[in-house]
Every structure is written in C-alpha cells, then in structure tokens.
C-alpha cells in the first residue's frame, strides 16, 4: 500500500491541469486513469495521433492536447494509465485494479476528474446492434481511425454531433442523413443568453456555425424537429422510423444510427463518497455542490472538469488548476493569499469560458420525449426492465428509485444505474406528479467499476 498527498482520478484536461498545479507546489501526486494514455475523451490518444494525418483531420482543438500531455508527463506526478478505480473509503483509501491485480492507495485529498457521460436516450430499438452513441463512434474515429463503411444516420442534438460529422466527413465517412431532435422554439429560448455568450468570445459560436456550414456544403440532408424515433430490425438495425413535431413521418433503411442528446456529469464517485449534489433544472441532471475551488461537501474531496458541471475542455482545465491549488493550500503549505493571487486570473478566464453555457444549455436543453419513453421501451439495459414496468410500480404508493430497484431490478446491473438512473427519476416524477429534482437518485453501491472476485481476493493477505 502506498501513501500520497493527492490522488487524481482521470487524466483528461482537468486531471492533467490539476496534477501540474499540485506538483508545482510540491505535493506528491498520483494520477490514475482507465485509458492507456493521457488526454481524456476530448484528447483521446493525442500523443500518438497528433503527428499523423488523422490528427490534422481532427482539428486544432484536438491537436492542442498534445502540449498539455507533454506538460503533464513532465510535471513529476506518478501516472498509472490502464487503472480502474472502483472504491474510495473515507480517510481516503482508494481501491484500484491494474493488469488484473487489485491494490489500495491512501491519499490525503482526492480530485475526481472523471468527466461526463452521454445522456442515455431510451427509445424503441435503442438496444439493437447498429445503434450506438455519437461519443462511442467518435472514440473509434480518434483511436482507430475507424469510419463506418455504410452511410450513417445521426439523430440528436448538441455540439458533439456537429463536430463528429465534420470529422467523419474529413475522414472519408458518409452521412445518410441527420435527424435533428432540437425542438421548435429552442433558438428563441436561447437568444436572450446570446449577449452573455459573446463574452466568452465568438470563437466557439463561429466554430459551430462553421461546422453547420461544412455540413450544408457537403449536401448532408437535415430533418429538423424530430420528436419520435424508432429503430427496427431483425437482430440488428435495418430501418428507422421518425416523426417530426409538425407531423412529417418517414421510414428509411439504415444500418448504423448514432444518437446523442447531450452529456451529463459523472456523479457516481461523488455520490458514493457522500458528496452533496444539486439538481440542474436546465440540463436535467445532478451536479456536485462545490465551493469556488471545486471542493465538495466532503472535506478533501474535489470535483473538477465536466464532472463538476458541463463546461467544456477549457473550463475543465481551469477548474483542474483551481482544485490543484487548493489541495496545495491544504496539504503543501501554499499560503492562502498566494493561492488566491494565482487563482484570480484563472477565475476570470473560467467565467469567460462558462459564459457560453447558458446559451448552449437553452439551445440544447433535452427534449421532453427523452424522459418519457413509451411503455414497451427498455429503460434498464442490464436487467431489461421496460418503462411500462417502472411506470406501473411507480404509481403504487410513492416509491422512490431505490424501492423501484428492489421491485423491478432496474438499476441492479453492472452499470450501476448509469444508463437508467435519470430516466427512472423522470418516470417516477411524472407518475407521482412531483418535481423531478425531489425524487432523488439511486443509492450508489460499490464497486464503482466492475472488479472481479479474483481481483478482490488478491487483496486478502491472510493465509487460508
């Protein structure tokens, strides 16, 4: 068992920046990450890809990750890629698995920089082979240069589909069509936030417009305001049915469908540690309750990056730096005033980086259908529990998600409710006519990641 000052979970923009900041002030730092190389989702595999033609196709924002990875490698933090962190006990004792061996690490403080996950979107047929998320497809594109052979359908809303489509076209992929699920009226709702958004500079907005323009130029067909979607096929995706808000309907042949309805913070680790969270009504997800440094309600536990609330890569780095600084105040003797001086310009940049969010949040707020799947739709993929099963039980008395878990097995599988948690909350809220934020989430049961019996057994030092 090893002892360190600071354990950082995740080596994306936030984790790397936190490590650099904490190392600059002399803390002993261990960074663990389940990927094989630093970069997180946004800069996945950037060290090897940056110098290749693929790197150029992925764009300047992607390439900028290379220098961050270099700075991180040089900062003097211990770094253990390919590690799964599956439990943190108070104190803090962290349980990790790497190469099939489990071990524990003790740390005085922890920064959770575990990022975000795509919002699960249950609709009829979403579990068919051939249906996957835009994020998953983008990972294949970044790491393996994998471009689907057949033209792909894209359904969803948000900046990521736009970016992915641009990258896919540059890599020689073909797009069969786009089913834009952004509802009518979202732009109008977002416009009041535009002046503030411009404070963050027009860069990202221009980027978004450029992506849209590139798609138009490539002749990609976009069907707007799609409100219902059904994937059909025998054993795999063969066709798509859709319907728009204004009543247009069609059935089209399809072999690959990529869906995306925004991203939400990864909250399982903070929840498992007992950190307070609050409901984000616009994004319909929980975010950890944090102070100005990113420290949670549990002393010594920080959340930085998109896990602290969706803010994008630049905000993630800045939040990582702030958390690293505060850890140095707590553990490394860095004076509070010195930390504040260093934090001042970071906070200014953070405010600018986040100024765009209300506009994006309003523009890409999840459509209501995302949370109200039809009765026959599977909601919990692990245990194959349908929306109807949950709805029927939710209407008997006032059970919360934890009771429904016992009644229906929804949320009992290896994904720990990462796929069904929010959907179940919304079904409960609607069945019981109460505000969704009041319903609460599943109690998170360890381990955070599946660990095998053999790996756990390897921690037992007593002879039989």
């Amino acid at each position, binding site marked *: 068992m090893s002892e360190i000052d600071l354990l950082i979970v995740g080596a994306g923009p936030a984790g790397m920046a936190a490590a650099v900041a904490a190392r600059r002030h002399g803390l002993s730092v261990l960074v663990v990450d389940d990927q094989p190389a630093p970069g997180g989702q946004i800069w996945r595999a950037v060290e090897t890809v940056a110098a290749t033609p693929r790197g150029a196709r992925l764009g300047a924002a992607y390439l900028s990750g290379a220098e961050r990875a270099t700075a991180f490698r040089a900062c003097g933090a211990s770094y253990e890629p390919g590690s799964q962190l599956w*439990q943190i*006990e108070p104190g803090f004792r962290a*349980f990790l698995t790497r190469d099939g061996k489990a071990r*524990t690490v003790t740390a005085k403080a922890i920064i959770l920089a575990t990022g975000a996950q795509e919002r699960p979107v249950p609709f009829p047929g979403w579990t068919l082979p051939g249906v996957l998320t835009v994020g998953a497809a983008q990972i294949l594109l970044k790491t393996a240069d994998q471009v689907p052979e057949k033209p792909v359908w894209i359904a969803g809303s948000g900046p990521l589909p736009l970016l992915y489509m641009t990258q896919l076209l540059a890599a020689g992929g073909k797009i069969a069509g786009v089913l834009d699920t952004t509802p009518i009226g979202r732009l109008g709702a977002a416009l009041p936030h535009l002046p503030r958004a411009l404070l963050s500079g027009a860069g990202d907005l221009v980027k978004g417009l450029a992506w849209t323009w590139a798609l138009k130029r490539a002749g990609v067909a976009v069907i707007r305001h799609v409100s219902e979607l059904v994937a059909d096929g025998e054993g795999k995706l063969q066709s798509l049915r859709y319907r728009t808000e204004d009543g247009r309907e069609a059935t089209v042949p399809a072999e690959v469908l990529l869906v995306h309805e925004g991203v939400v913070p990864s909250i399982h680790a903070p929840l498992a540690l007992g950190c307070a969270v609050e409901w984000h009504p616009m994004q319909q997800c929980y975010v950890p309750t944090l102070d100005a440094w990113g420290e949670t309600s549990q002393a010594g536990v920080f959340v930085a990056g998109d896990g602290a609330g969706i803010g994008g890569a630049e905000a993630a780095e800045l939040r990582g730096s702030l958390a690293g600084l505060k850890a140095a105040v707590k553990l490394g003797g860095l004076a509070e005033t010195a930390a504040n001086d260093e934090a001042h310009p970071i906070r200014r940049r953070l405010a600018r980086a986040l100024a765009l969010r209300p506009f994006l949040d309003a523009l890409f707020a999840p459509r209501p259908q995302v949370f109200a799947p039809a009765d026959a739709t599977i909601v919990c993929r692990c245990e194959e529990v349908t929306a109807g099963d949950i709805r029927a039980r939710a209407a008997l*008395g006032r*059970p919360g998600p934890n*009771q429904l878990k*016992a*009644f229906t*097995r929804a949320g*009992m*599988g*290896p994904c*720990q409710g990462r796929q069904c948690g929010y959907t179940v909350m919304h079904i409960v809220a609607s069945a019981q006519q109460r505000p969704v934020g009041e319903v609460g989430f599943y109690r998170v*049961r*360890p*381990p955070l990641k*599946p*660990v*095998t*019996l*053999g790996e*756990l*057994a*390897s*921690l*037992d030092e*007593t002879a*039989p």
Partner: protein
Amino acid sequence: MSTAGFDVAVVGGGLHGLSAALHLARAGRRTVILERSWVGRHASSATAAGVRTLWRDLAEVPISLEAMEMWHGIAGIVGDDCGFHADGQIRVAEFDRDWPGLVEREARMRALGYAHEELIDAAELRRLAPALSPHCVGALIARRDGAADPHRTIAAFRRACEAAGVTIIEGCGLDAVERHGSDWLLRSGTRGFTAPVVVNAAGAWAGKLAALFGDEIELGLKASMMIVTERLAPLLAPVVSVVGRALSFKQSDQGTLVIGGGLQGAADLDRQSSSVDFLNLAKGARAAVDLFPVVGDVRIARSWTGIEAKTRDLLPVIGASPNAPGLFHVFGFSGHGFQLVPVAGAILCDLIVEGGTQRQIAAFAPERLMAKRAAA
C-alpha cells in the same frame, strides 16, 4: 394531533413486523404497522434470504423445523412462493481436519431425534455441487433447506398483510411513547397511534425502542456484507457454506452469484447507514475463489451491508416485556432471522391472542439480556 386507535401497533416494517402483523390481523386484531422509512428498508432487503435449518443453535431447532414446514407451503400463507427453492444447504468440510466436527454434530442431532442433517461424502458432494473445488472432503447437508428471493418475500408479505386488513404507514418514525390508561400512545410528528398492545420489531433499532418503554436490553449490531455478481449460466443449485471461513455462496434465480457469510462492514445506527469494508470483504472473495475456482473472473456488480441487531448469545429476543404491559419483543435475530419469519409471527400471535404459546421459546426470553435489579 390526530390520533388513530388500533388493537395492536407493530413498530418496524421489516419481515418480522410484517409476519407478526399478518398473523394478528388474521386472528381478528386491528393492526397497524408503523415504519420509519419504508417496508423492508434495512435487513429484510439486505439479507441473503437463506432458508436454513442446518447448523442451527439447538435452542432454535424446534421453531426452525416448524418454520421450514411453513416455507414448504409458503404460497398457502402469503399467496406467492417467494422465490423459495429447496435445493438444500450444505456445510462443506474443506480439509480432513474439518470433518470430525461435522460427524460429531450429525451424531448429536440424531441422538436428539432430529433427522434433517445428513453427512455426505466427497462423491455425493461433487454430484450436488459440481463446480466446487475437488479438494473438499465431505459435507453436512439439510436437503429440504434452500433460499428465497428477499424482494419477492417482502412484497408477498406486504400484499398478504394488506389483504388481511393491516394498515401500513411508511415514513412514520416514532418520537415518543406515553402511557394513557391501558393504552400506549405512540407519537410520530403530528400523528398519534394508540393501542393496548405494541410489538417491537424494530430490528437494529429495537434496543432504542425498548428503552422508550423502560426495557434496557443489551444489544449489539451486525452489518453483514454481501456481494452480488453479474449473471452466469447455471452453476450451482444448493446454498454452500464452509467450516472455518466466513462464506455463504449461492446462485440466484437471475443467475447472479450471491456471496455472504457474515463478514462485517461498518454500521452507524444514528445515520441509519452502513458501509462496506473491502479489505475485510476480500476474505469472502478469497473464500469464494478457493471453493469455486471457476468464478475468479466473474465481475462483482454490487456489494452492500444491512444493519440488524445481534445478541450476546446470538439467539433472538422473542417474548413479552417483563416491565411494560402489552409490549412484546421480536428482534435480535443476529444474522439468521429470515428463515424464522413465518413462525416468529405465529409465536407473537400466540402470545398476544392466547396469552401464551406451546412453542419452545424459553431461550429467547428478553429477561436474559436485561441487567438484574439489585435486591433491596
């Protein structure tokens, strides 16, 4: 304050509270269950749900055997089979040194006239549990034992209670207890419940409840840890435990492995929470992998603990309060109460309705755990 009157108020909506309420309601008593959070919140849903007569304390054997008959007809009692399968419970001797203890136990039980525990050799053991490591030398088996599904059991007892007319009030924690004439008044916020008879089925919190009535009962805590894995193809029908190690190992109807055995996590009564201690739990994983080598690569899906009361002698507390008129205790099952659920409710019904029971419960008297008052 709004007050409602009943014949019996059962405090605690776990399985023992439900069972007592069910029997009482069927005997014509107007019964209410007052549950602080929700039915089955703590030990009842955290249990491995073993239905076991095997290796019981001798004091528990008579009621355990009766309970086993009830389990074999459980659908007739609560309208659902509760997912009960009688594929046997097996206590394995891993090494030659573990065998004499099992032989001795079997002889003792036979001498007492019990026939439910039976020795089996290595060949029979392999036939019943082919996935078990071949190094095991033999076992003691109770073939009519088995396991049930805890959530189905809770749901079935709850439905049966409601059908029998029991009023179940969830989210109803008690603030105070007062004596009003021949009734007890139980206060919960702005609500009050009066009844001449109160059943203390408050599980881990039963000691605190007893104290409100003036019964000081020495009570410890258990926070037994459980592991459940991803689903597997059928691997094992009986429930397996092993001499000298904390392991209980079975496969559920869903195909998941359910691994327990009494390894302890940490419990916090006041916060009503408990937590898993993975360094300790590693011993259970080690035992599982040693006994069933094929499961080494099986992924753990979840682990948890439940809180329940533990007594000094590991026997339950079942009986009337020596101090408080109309108060009856049923708690302290110390990690092996699930099987006793149907019979314990029947015993409470005897005590309350008949004023006594033919069943052998002397060893469970609350007095044994109460400080003796010094003679004047």
